[in-house]
């Protein structure tokens, strides 16, 4: 109800428009069968390079309904799609719980799902998504290694949790189980990802913060917060417990019951001792807690840090020695897509990886799946600041023209390779998910 990920994103209810779109789709499909066949022949003969393609006239009638979390469901993207590709993209922004719910239970309400990899692990089994043929993805080879082999650089160590490549591939178009290597059939095309850590108020703390253990440091009693989304909160909790040396985990992303018990026991004790000021569930809550000074150290997401800073309040996305908790999102195709609409969806995905969106998102502090194409859409200074971790030469503005950083500042955590290379754990869904959720609810109720 009030869990919208970002307050300023308009929410269109595609469930309401779904009915009309569907019936229009049916008639459209029968009408266009002929032209699609011609188009298919044209594609086959290699007559088409890039977009717009030969059936650009028909594709204008296509409407693709996309839903996802607020981070990448931006109206600017829909407008640019209309401009570049000609068809209509309807966006619906929801919080991550609702996204999971819709992907799992309302397959007819969407054409494209913009979901996180751990959500994919959870809902793939429901059979509402179809795998993508990587040979149709133009920039497939340029996608960052993290999403293909799992390794950012050839000598990277794969982090714990639901690493994207472990749920990124299936054996065939109808594959139900995940494959452990690149098979040519991708579940999600990665869109954006980032490395998360703790946000702090340096002005109210006044000393360096270096470890996850500080979240439970009694010094910050009544001034700490953690996010109340069980699947992500448990990870932050595990990062803290491991850093404290209290719990050793086999895999933080797939804990045993015993590990869950130990972790929650430590946090329950801290909660009872009054360590936490509040728990937050939506992006704007975390911003308000930090801005008002109710909280000085907490789990936080990158755009929330930016939002606090844009109010003139110092806030640092503190890199910690134990590493980051990372997450990644991607676009999945509805199993209901076929024919012209499926072609349009591939067109859209190729366009997505072509760089404009990547640049748009990277200027907000996220990373794009194909950074080298995004570079073409960013200034040298922006690329240096956001990707290479260099000091800004001039003011750094976000895509909406707001100044985010002054000249001379450096991104918290440094370059892409420094940040994404220090990932300790990916957001995950565990085998003991049901048990974990119960324990988490007990922690909240304690």
């Amino acid at each position, binding site marked *: 109800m*009030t869990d919208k990920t970002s307050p300023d994103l308009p929410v269109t209810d595609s469930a309401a428009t779904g009915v009309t779109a569907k019936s229009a789709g049916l008639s459209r499909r029968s009408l266009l069968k002929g032209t699609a066949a011609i188009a298919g022949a044209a594609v086959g003969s290699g007559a088409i390079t890039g977009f717009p393609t030969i059936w650009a006239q028909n594709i204008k009638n296509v409407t693709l309904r996309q839903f996802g979390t607020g981070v990448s469901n931006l109206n600017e993207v829909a407008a640019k799609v209309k401009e570049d590709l000609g068809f209509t993209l309807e966006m619906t922004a929801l919080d991550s*719980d609702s996204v999971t719910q819709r992907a799992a*239970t309302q397959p007819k309400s969407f054409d494209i799902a913009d979901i996180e990899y751990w959500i994919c692990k959870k*809902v793939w089994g429901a059979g509402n998504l179809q795998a993508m043929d990587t040979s149709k993805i133009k920039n497939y080879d340029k996608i960052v290694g993290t999403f293909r082999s799992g390794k950012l650089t050839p000598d990277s160590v794969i982090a714990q949790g639901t690493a994207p490549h472990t749920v990124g591939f299936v054996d065939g178009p109808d594959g139900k189980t995940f494959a452990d290597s690149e098979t040519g059939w991708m579940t999600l095309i990665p869109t954006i990802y980032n490395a998360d850590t703790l946000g702090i108020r340096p002005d109210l703390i006044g000393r360096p913060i270096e470890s996850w253990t500080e979240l439970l440091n009694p010094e910050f009693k*009544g001034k700490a917060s953690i996010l109340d989304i069980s699947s992500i909160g448990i990870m932050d909790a595990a990062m803290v417990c491991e850093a404290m040396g209290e719990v050793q985990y086999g895999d933080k992303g797939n804990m045993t019951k015993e590990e869950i018990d130990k972790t929650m026991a430590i946090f329950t004790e801290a909660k009872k001792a009054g360590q936490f000021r509040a728990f937050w569930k939506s992006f704007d809550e975390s911003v308000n807690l930090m801005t008002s*000074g109710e909280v000085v150290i907490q789990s936080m997401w990158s755009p929330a840090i930016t939002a606090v800073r844009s109010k003139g309040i110092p806030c640092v996305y503190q890199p910690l020695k134990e590493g980051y908790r990372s997450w990644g999102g991607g676009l999945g195709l509805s199993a209901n897509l076929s024919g012209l609409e499926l072609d349009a969806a591939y067109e859209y995905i190729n366009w997505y990886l072509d760089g404009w969106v990547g640049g748009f998102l990277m200027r907000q502090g996220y990373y794009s799946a194909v950074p080298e194409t995004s570079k073409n859409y960013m200034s040298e200074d922006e690329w240096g600041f956001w990707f290479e971790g260099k000091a800004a030469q001039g003011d750094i503005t976000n895509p909406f023209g707001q100044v985010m950083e002054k000249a001379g500042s450096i991104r918290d955590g440094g370059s892409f390779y420094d940040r994404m290379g220090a990932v300790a754990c990916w957001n995950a869904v565990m085998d003991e998910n049901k048990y974990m959720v*119960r324990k988490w609810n007990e922690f*909240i*109720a304690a």
Partner: protein
Amino acid sequence: MHPSAVNRLSGLLVLPLVGILAVFLIVPVCLIVVVSFWDYNEWDFFPAFIFDNYAYILTSPVTWATYWRTVQYTVITWVFCTSIGFTVAYFLAFHVRSQTWQIALFLVCTIPFWTSNIIRMISWIPFLGRNGIANSVLRDAGLIEEPLEWLLFSDFAVVLAFVHLYTLFMVVPVFNTLMRIDRSVIEAARDAGASGWQTLVHVVLPLSKPGLMIGSIFIVTLVMGDFITVRFMSGGQSASVGRVIANEIALLQYPAAAANAVILLATVLLIVSVMLRYVDIRKEL
């Protein structure tokens, strides 16, 4: 017309209501009961006949703690809403003489309801915060040195918001019953030598029981079923039954949520039926 024909006709008149209640109340409740016995996994729930959902709820100490907390909220909120609500209604009914003023003041009571529930609740947050208005005023007045932390994100804040939100639900029915008390009864009490206090306790209070009971039913059902006020005002740190259900729905655990809802429904019905034993609302209306 023949009496039995009249009966049949009035039976027909009830049909639309029966239809509405059946479709929008009976059927959904039955569905919830059915689903509460189903099984589920991460993304789906499917027909089964298992008692696990109930077994977990009834044996988990968290359930008992949550219900205990919810009942505490309900009782404390009820006490404040009733005492404030009754006082306000009494003042309006007996101390304000002109009917124009009565109506005017009654409308004043409803002004906060011109904005949404959520807005009224959230507006407390900047007021009560660590650097909020309440704390700065107290500090400037020299009454405290350190900000009072318990003002916000605490049980105090939750109850404060509840009382603020729901007192009017007590004022309205109590005011209604007080207005219907025959003034000659009060005069008779005074003639018989009763003091003001005695009149209040032995005459006014018993006669206002139906109003108090209707108000109490509102408050009990609203507080028992709440999830958003508890979440916002406790900073997500306190649980209530409604929040547990909301969490389970968010995590796609529909059968568990349904089982919880059935138990909550049974609990509330039990409380309301006990309350109704003391007052026959139909007779007194």
